[in-house]
């Protein structure tokens, strides 16, 4: 594949960014929406799963095991397996991404809850706390650093994974990468989309790091490590 040497095809080209601002912004917006929705839904599913797996010990193995098996299925295969039933588009990508995020989230919520000292539970029980209040007011706040670590990991890996959604026609920035490839090796498009992916991952991670500092000021020393 020799490209014509006369044609200019730089990796970094502000002209491309200027001329295609709307397309790029739309893709970026899809990327952000998919990532945030995935992490929010994943967390909403992971929290009760972890709580249930903690209460009934025998469920722990199956829950972690199932999440582990889901995590092992290659993304291209998973999207292809879902596509005939869930269709081509955002919904399929979202379902697949949530399945992947579950392992990181459930494992960390469980580990966080495991880390709550028994004395603390005893003390709370002595003060007349019921199970629900105990979970919300005592256990979850103590588990929060571990939970936030899980959310950060899930967020960064989801940003990278959204690109694979291109196989079912909804890859956000990944769509730009592949169409840049198909469109005569359009380097500026490939590079811009890649750079935005990496920057988005770093930015979201930074924001979550800040959120962790605000939410769990007592763990500041550990979070920095």
């Amino acid at each position, binding site marked *: 594949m020799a490209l014509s040497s006369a044609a200019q095809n730089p990796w970094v080209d502000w002209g491309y960014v200027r001329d295609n601002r709307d397309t790029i912004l739309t893709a970026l917006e899809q990327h952000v929406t998919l990532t945030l929705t995935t992490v929010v839904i994943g967390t909403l599913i992971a929290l009760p799963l972890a709580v249930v797996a903690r209460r009934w010990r025998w469920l722990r193995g199956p829950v972690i095991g199932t999440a582990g098996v889901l995590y092992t299925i290659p993304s291209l295969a998973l999207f292809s397996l879902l596509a005939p039933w869930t269709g081509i588009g955002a919904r399929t990508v979202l379902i697949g991404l949530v399945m992947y995020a579950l392992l990181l989230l459930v494992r960390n919520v469980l580990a966080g809850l495991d880390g709550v000292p028994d004395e603390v539970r005893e003390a709370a029980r002595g003060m007349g706390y019921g199970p629900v209040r105990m979970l919300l007011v005592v256990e979850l706040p103590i588990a929060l650093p571990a939970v936030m*670590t899980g959310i950060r*990991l899930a967020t*960064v890996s989801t940003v990278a994974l959204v690109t694979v959604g291109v196989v079912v026609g909804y890859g956000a920035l990944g769509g730009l990468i592949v169409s840049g490839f198909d469109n005569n090796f359009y380097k500026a498009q490939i590079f811009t989309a890649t750079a935005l992916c990496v920057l988005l991952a770093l930015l979201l991670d930074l924001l979550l790091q800040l959120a962790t500092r605000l939410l769990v000021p007592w763990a500041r020393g550990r979070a920095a490590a």
Partner: protein
Amino acid sequence: MSYLSDAFTWLNDPLNWKGPDGVTARLVEHLEITGLAVLLGAVLALPLGVWLGHAGRGGTLTVALTNASRAVPTLAALTILVVATGDLGNAPTIYALALFAAPPMLANAYVGVRGVDRDVVEAARGMGLSGLQTLLRVELPLALPLLMAGIRTAVVQVLATAPLAAYVGGGGLGRLIRSGFSTQDYGQTLAVALLVAALALAAEGLLAAAQWAVTPGRSLAARRPRPVELSDPVPARP
């Protein structure tokens, strides 16, 4: 469930297994790509990780590399390498996949060697073993389970990522998934996707068994899930 029966019909057709674009040829190609990529990644990462762990430095570097590798989409790395080299064969695919196979192996090798009980290392030194002897006879054997864990992560990750190469001119089973999509033959897509998923799960199972076999004092207690740390060599699911 008609798609599923389509998939089984497709798999049962011997014609789909033969020829240069048949399942057999693509499967062999898939395994070749995976094998070479992991090998290349291992040659780069394992000695470096072991040495860094032995010398007790480079922890920051290892963590930084592992984290950075999580943020870069594999699809982007594949595309950029293919475009940069202008090579539509399997070579750029192998290089890109090797780049993603290296971080988990590097991190596990580092953590494995670094994590060997300091008292044991001191005792070996006290018995008059040289640095190299300590490394070969004490640290490496004790780090073996974690080295194995890194290789396992790398293999499964590469097996799982390799199909994406089909979107940038590479071969392997991804080719058949992609052609199923483009001809709207969902039976074919589903059949090959099932094969790829089975392949990844089988590799995971086999390598988990291998890891268990090289773990001294193996017990089920060690399998209790622990929190995933940011510095952990968790694979970015490709």
